[in-house]
């Protein structure tokens, strides 16, 4: 697998280079990936929690989603 690359453009000269990431850039890339995975997990958990709470409330009320929407519309 090829190394991740970074494209760098100098706005003053218009010069553009594309090169392999340095070790520090690769380390940051890995850190970003870990953080992104955590973010995605948190988002998914948040969505699941909201859905579960919503379903529980609907059950207590004895309403379907469509009936709730009809009430709120």
């Amino acid at each position: 697998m090829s190394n991740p690359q970074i494209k760098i453009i100098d706005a003053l000269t218009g010069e553009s280079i594309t090169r392999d990431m340095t070790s520090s850039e690769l380390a940051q890339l890995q850190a970003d990936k870990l953080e992104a995975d955590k973010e995605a997990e948190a988002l998914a958990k948040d969505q699941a929690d909201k859905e579960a709470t919503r379903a529980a409330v609907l059950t207590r009320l004895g309403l379907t989603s469509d009936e709730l929407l009809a009430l709120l519309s």
Partner: protein
Amino acid sequence: MAKQTFTSGQVLTAAQVNALQSNDFNQTVTTKTASYTPTTTTDIGTRVIMNSASATTITINTSIYSAGDTFFIGNIGAGVCTLTAGTCTITTAGSLAIPQNGGGTLYFTSASAAIFYSSAGPTASSGLTFITGGSLSGTATSIDNCFSATYLNYKIVLNDLIVSVGSRVAFRMRVSGSDNTTSNYTFGVFGIDTAGSTVVAILAAANGTSFRLTTGTDIGSGMSTSFDLQNPFASKPTSFGVANLMQGETATACVANGVFKATTSFDGITFFPFTSPETLTGTYKIYGYANS
């Protein structure tokens, strides 16, 4: 033809009348190929055309022309012709530098003062100035030397952004060729499902290491957005704000805001997809807001 002086008793010939009429409808043109300093009134009512590949000047001195005299100055050469106040005052709302295919009328209000009505018009003193633009590709795209002391605030326009499903568009500030990865990025992003009218995602960080522009819900088709960036070069906190961002496939409206809390001066920016090693493609344009 040049301005004529007729004397009492002189016979006015048909040729003289025709010549004068000709100048009214088809002005006499005098082409100059080098810098020029008028010493007589020969040019009044005519056109002086500069034609030089290198820069030239037309120097105007006092006590040659009188109030009401006019003549046209044009430049067809590649070299800029600069109308120069010798001993005569010249004012203009535009520029005294006449570019190729530019020109204007020089009108004397006295023997020592003139107004140049330039075809170029007044110099713009406000608005947006294009700084740079190009394409985004690969794992990251950095743009160096796009922020400077010339502008305090910037507008960044991103078009046709494509990142893989599940990824997010992110950016970092940059200085001297390196990204700033300190934990000074504070941001919040809301993603609103336009079909269900519900908030589908909220991303936020008080001490993040980059900014996020999107919430990352199934972006697979091209999308466009723009945002303002305040104080990136100034030694002040750098802030940004985005609204009305529609993420391609799921029609999610995003609102994103953030601030880099430290007072770092930045000269560049890096765009990248926040789920590496996905790629981010698209185009960018960066503009500077005039400070006054």
